């Protein structure tokens, strides 16, 4: 099973929301808070569902998203 995570550089994020549209699971949301420039920044709303597919990072115009991905053994297979 592939698991992933994203880290958003919140100070550089301009809140364009393109990543929220690109995410195949729709798990990226915009924060209630604003950064020092007044933009609502993107954050991973459901962090335990990310697969690290990179889609959000690919469309991000300001390259504020770093993507992490690793392979772990399926819990069901590990038991067998």
């Amino acid at each position, binding site marked *: 099973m592939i698991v992933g*995570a994203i880290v958003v550089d919140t100070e*550089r994020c*301009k809140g364009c929301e*393109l990543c929220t549209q690109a995410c195949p*699971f729709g798990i990226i949301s915009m924060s209630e808070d604003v950064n020092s420039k007044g933009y609502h920044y993107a954050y991973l709303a459901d962090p335990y569902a990310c697969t690290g597919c*990179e889609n959000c990072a690919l469309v991000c*115009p300001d390259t504020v998203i770093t993507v992490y991905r690793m392979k*772990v053994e399926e819990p069901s297979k590990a038991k067998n």
Partner: protein
Amino acid sequence: MAKVKHHNIPLDQIIKPENIVFKRTKLFTDNVLSYCPGCGHGVAHRLILEVLEEMGIADKTIGIAPVGCSVLAYEFMDIDMQEAAHGRAPALATGIKRTNPDKFVFAYQGDGDLAAIGTAETIHTANRGENITVIFINNGIYGMTGGQMAPTTIYGMKTSTTPYGRDPKQMGHPLKITEIVAQLPGTCYVTRQAVHTPALVRKAKKAIRKAFEYQKQNKGLSFVEIVSNCNSGWKMTPVQAVKWLEENMLPYYPLGDLKDIGLD
């Protein structure tokens, strides 16, 4: 929407340097891009820099910045760059390439720069078959000066100088300069791409890579158009602008290769 599947792996186990699969390329400077939120210029910059990094040619590449929103491109790309007068990027690129034939030279231009004031330079540089790469960002509007009509503005599109939409009887027709360039014998690779979805970003990167591969083999001028959005000029949110681009720009500017003479 794909089905969400949860896991219970602690995030600090995933967020480790060895698990990085995507990060900001080192060829970007630390400056924050001066573009509006959601602007396609940022992705286009990144794709060029990633290609240069992957090909290992960043230290022997000279870029030409245009006039327009991307006038400050040299502030963001950590490579050698030169600023050209409005529309004259291909002419400057010609001079640089002819005096430094071992360098990779690319001109980065918007539609107001390349398809309006610089039409003559664009066509003649392509026709001379100069060994350079031209990256053309087409958002159908003059973005920096306040969203006026450009030659590439599509039929019916509202801009600050065409508030009732572009009427071809009065304002003429949208200029498909990429199609014109593709007809010229001096060009080796002419393609039209877009960068608003992940799949298209991947394709556009491959196209830019190919354009530089052509330059490596001295095949002639390689030309990559990127159909992009200008949400500020179009008076839309970035998400609306991307949808509008897909529904209105792409039917007039269809994506794909217009010319590809083949690499060795």
